[in-house]
C-alpha cells in the first residue's frame, strides 16, 4: 500500500483540487499534499535502502501476470526528489500563478503530472510505464498551455509534436518486446531476454525504446523541443518541468537498459556515447548564444542531460553512481536557479539580458542567493556540482574516453561564461533606462523566496556531506548493475513456465 501512495496521493489530490479550484484553501491543500509526498518518498527510500527492493502486487495478481510496483533505492530517491520538486515549485506558484489560471486547474494538473512521474519511477511493468508516460505527458501539455498566450501555444506545439512521435515509438517498441518474449513484466522480461540481445526483434525494440526515452530526456538529435518550449510557461511550471520531465527519460533509460536489455551492448553504448558527447557540446554552445534567462537555462539543461546519460553510456559502476548523484545535485540547483531567474524577471519586468540589471543595489542578498545554485552548476568546489562532475569526469577517464571527459570540462568553462554573464547582467549592469537613484530595495513575497531557500539548503546539504548522498547513489548503481535481487523480489518462485 505504501508503494502505491506516491501515485495515489497526487492523483487523488488532483481530483480534489480540481473540484476546489475556486476555493481560497486549495493552494494550502496542494502544498500539504506535496509536502506529504516528500515524507512518503523518504520512508520508501529508507525501507528500500535498508531491506532491498520493495514490491507490491496490484490487485493481488502475482507477477508476472499483474501489475507490479517496485521500489529499489533509485526509485525511492527519485520519488522523494519528485515530491520535493512539486512542493517547492507549487509554493512558488502560490504567488506567481494568478487566480484566473488557478480556476482553470493549475494545481490539479501539477499534481496529476507528479502522480504520473512517480508512477513511472515505481512501476515494474513496461506497458504500465507507457501509461504513466502518457499521464505525465497529457498533464504537462495542460500545464504548458494553461492561461496561454501566443508564445505558450507556439512552444507547446513543438513540445507536443515531438513527444507524440516518441510516444508512438515507445508503444511499438513495447509491442515488439511482447511479441518476442511474451511478457510485459520487467523482471520477467529480464529473465526471458537473457543472452538474446543479438536477435533482430530485441535490438529493434531496444532501438525504438532508446529513441523514445532519448526524445523524452532531450538528447541529441531529438532535444530541440526543450529550448523551444521551456521558457514559455509560468516560472513555476518551467522549474517543475526541468526537475521532472527530462529526468523521467533518463531514469527510464537507466532502468530499461540495465534490467530488460543487458548492459554493455556495444551498439547501444556506442550510439549513446556519441549522442551524449554532442548533447553536452551543443547544449553548452546554445546556452552561450542565447540572450534570455530561461532560454539560457533550457540549453543548460540539455547540456547536463548529456552528462547524466553518460552514466549508462560508460556503463561502469562509478559512472552509474555518478549519474544518480547528478540527479541529486542537478534537480535542486537547476530549480533554484530557474526560480531565482523568475524573481529577477519579476523585478526587472523582462527576461532579456539587455533589459535587466541593477539588482545588486536593490538587493545584494538576492545576488548571494543566486551564487549558490550558479556556482554549484558550474562545478566550483566544494559545492554539489563539483562532486557530481568529479565523479563523471573520473568515470570517463577510467573508461579511457578522454574526449568525453574533456567535453564535460569544456562545458563547465562555458557554463562559467554564460551563467556568469547572467549574473553580471542581472546584478552589476545598470538597469537600462532606469536611474540608479530610482532603484528601490526589493522585498519579494516570502512564499517566493522560501522555495529558493529550501532548494539552496538542499544544495548546501549535498555540498557539505557528499559522502552520504554518494552512498545512496552507489547503492542505487549496485542494484542497477546486479538486477538479481530486484528480479527475486518480484518473482520469488522464479520464472513461470
Amino acid at each position, binding site marked *: 500500500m505504501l508503494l502505491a501512495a506516491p501515485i495515489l496521493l497526487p492523483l487523488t489530490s488532483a481530483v480534489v483540487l480540481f473540484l476546489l479550484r475556486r476555493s481560497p484553501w486549495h493552494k494550502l491543500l496542494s502544498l500539504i499534499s506535496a509536502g506529504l509526498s516528500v515524507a512518503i518518498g523518504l520512508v520508501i527510500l529508507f525501507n528500500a535502502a535498508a531491506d532491498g527492493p520493495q514490491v507490491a502486487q496490484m490487485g493481488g495478481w502475482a507477477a508476472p501476470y499483474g501489475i507490479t510496483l517496485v521500489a529499489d533505492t533509485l526509485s525511492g530517491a527519485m520519488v522523494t526528489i519528485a515530491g520535493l520538486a512539486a512542493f517547492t515549485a507549487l509554493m512558488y506558484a502560490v504567488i506567481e500563478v494568478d487566480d484566473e489560471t488557478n480556476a482553470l486547474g493549475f494545481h490539479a494538473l501539477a499534481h496529476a503530472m507528479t502522480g504520473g512521474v512517480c508512477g513511472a519511477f515505481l512501476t515494474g511493468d513496461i*506497458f504500465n510505464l507507457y*501509461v504513466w508516460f*502518457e499521464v505525465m*505527458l*497529457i498533464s504537462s*501539455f495542460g500545464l504548458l*498551455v494553461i492561461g496561454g498566450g*501566443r*508564445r*505558450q*501555444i*507556439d*512552444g*507547446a*506545439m*513543438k513540445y*507536443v*509534436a515531438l513527444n*507524440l*512521435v516518441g*510516444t*508512438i515509438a515507445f*508503444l*511499438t517498441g*513495447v*509491442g*515488439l518486446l*511482447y*511479441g*518476442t518474449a511474451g511478457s510485459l513484466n520487467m523482471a520477467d522480461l529480464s529473465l526471458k531476454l537473457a543472452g538474446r540481445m543479438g536477435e533482430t526483434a530485441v535490438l529493434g525494440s531496444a532501438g525504438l525504446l532508446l529513441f523514445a526515452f532519448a526524445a523524452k530526456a532531450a538528447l541529441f538529435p531529438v532535444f530541440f523541443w526543450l*529550448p*523551444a*518550449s521551456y*521558457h*514559455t510557461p509560468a516560472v513555476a511550471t518551467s522549474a517543475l518541468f526541468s526537475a521532472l520531465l527530462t529526468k523521467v527519460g533518463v531514469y527510464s533509460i537507466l532502468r530499461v537498459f540495465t534490467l530488460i536489455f543487458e548492459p554493455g551492448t556495444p551498439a547501444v553504448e556506442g550510439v549513446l556515447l556519441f549522442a551524449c558527447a554532442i548533447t553536452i557540446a551543443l547544449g553548452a554552445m546554445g546556452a*552561450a*548564444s*542565447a*540572450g*534570455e534567462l530561461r*532560454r539560457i537555462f533550457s540549453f543548460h539543461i540539455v547540456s547536463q542531460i548529456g552528462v547524466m546519460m553518460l552514466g549508462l553510456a560508460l556503463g561502469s559502476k562509478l559512472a552509474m553512481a555518478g549519474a544518480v548523484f547528478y540527479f541529486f545535485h542537478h534537480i535542486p540547483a537547476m530549480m533554484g536557479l530557474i526560480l531565482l531567474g523568475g524573481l529577477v524577471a519579476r523585478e526587472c519586468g523582462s527576461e*532579456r*539580458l*539587455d533589459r535587466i*540589471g541593477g539588482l545588486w543595489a536593490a538587493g545584494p542578498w538576492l545576488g548571494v542567493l543566486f551564487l549558490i545554485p550558479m556556482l554549484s552548476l558550474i562545478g566550483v568546489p566544494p559545492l554539489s556540482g563539483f562532486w557530481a562532475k568529479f565523479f563523471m569526469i573520473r568515470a570517463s577517464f577510467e573508461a579511457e574516453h578522454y574526449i568525453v571527459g574533456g567535453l564535460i570540462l569544456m562545458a563547465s568553462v562555458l557554463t562559467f561564461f*554564460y551563467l556568469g*554573464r547572467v549574473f*553580471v*547582467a542581472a546584478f*552589476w*549592469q*545598470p538597469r*537600462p533606462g532606469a536611474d540608479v537613484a530610482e532603484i528601490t530595495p526589493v522585498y519579494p513575497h516570502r512564499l517566493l523566496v522560501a522555495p529558493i531557500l529550501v532548494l539552496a539548503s538542499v544544495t548546501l546539504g549535498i555540498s557539505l556531506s557528499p559522502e552520504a548522498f554518494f552512498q545512496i547513489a552507489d547503492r542505487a548503481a549496485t542494484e542497477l548493475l546486479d538486477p538479481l535481487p530486484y528480479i527475486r523480489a518480484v518473482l520469488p518462485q522464479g520464472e513461470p513456465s
Partner: protein
Amino acid sequence: MEPALAITVGILVAGGSYLMMSSNLIRFLFGLTIISNAANLAIFAAGRMTFGDPALVAEGAKTPPEGVANALPQALILTAIVIGFGLLVFTLSLVLRAYAEFGTADSAGMREAEPRNEPEPETAFGEAR
C-alpha cells in the same frame, strides 16, 4: 496472415511519415494518427495471428477453455487507442488555437517562442560594455 499485416503496417508507416514531413500541422496530425494506428496493428500482430475462440471464461470455470485467442494484445491496443484518442483531441484543439492565434496552420509561420531576431547576448549588455 502475418505477411499481409506486415505489409499493411509498412504502407501505413510510409504514408504517415510522408505526411508528417509536411510543415502543415493538419497534415502532420493526420500522419501521426496513421502511424499510431500502424503501431496498434503491429502490437496486434505481435500477439500472434491465430484462428482462436473468443477469450471467454465459462460460468463457474476458473480458466478459459482450450484454443482461445490471446486477449492481452487486444487489451493493450484498447488502452493505446483510448490514450491516442485523448492525445489526438488535445493536439487538434491546440492546432485550432494556434490557427486562431497565428492565422496559419504552417509551423514555419510560428516563430513566437523562438523569434528570428532573437536578442543576441553580445548586444544584450547594452551600456555595461
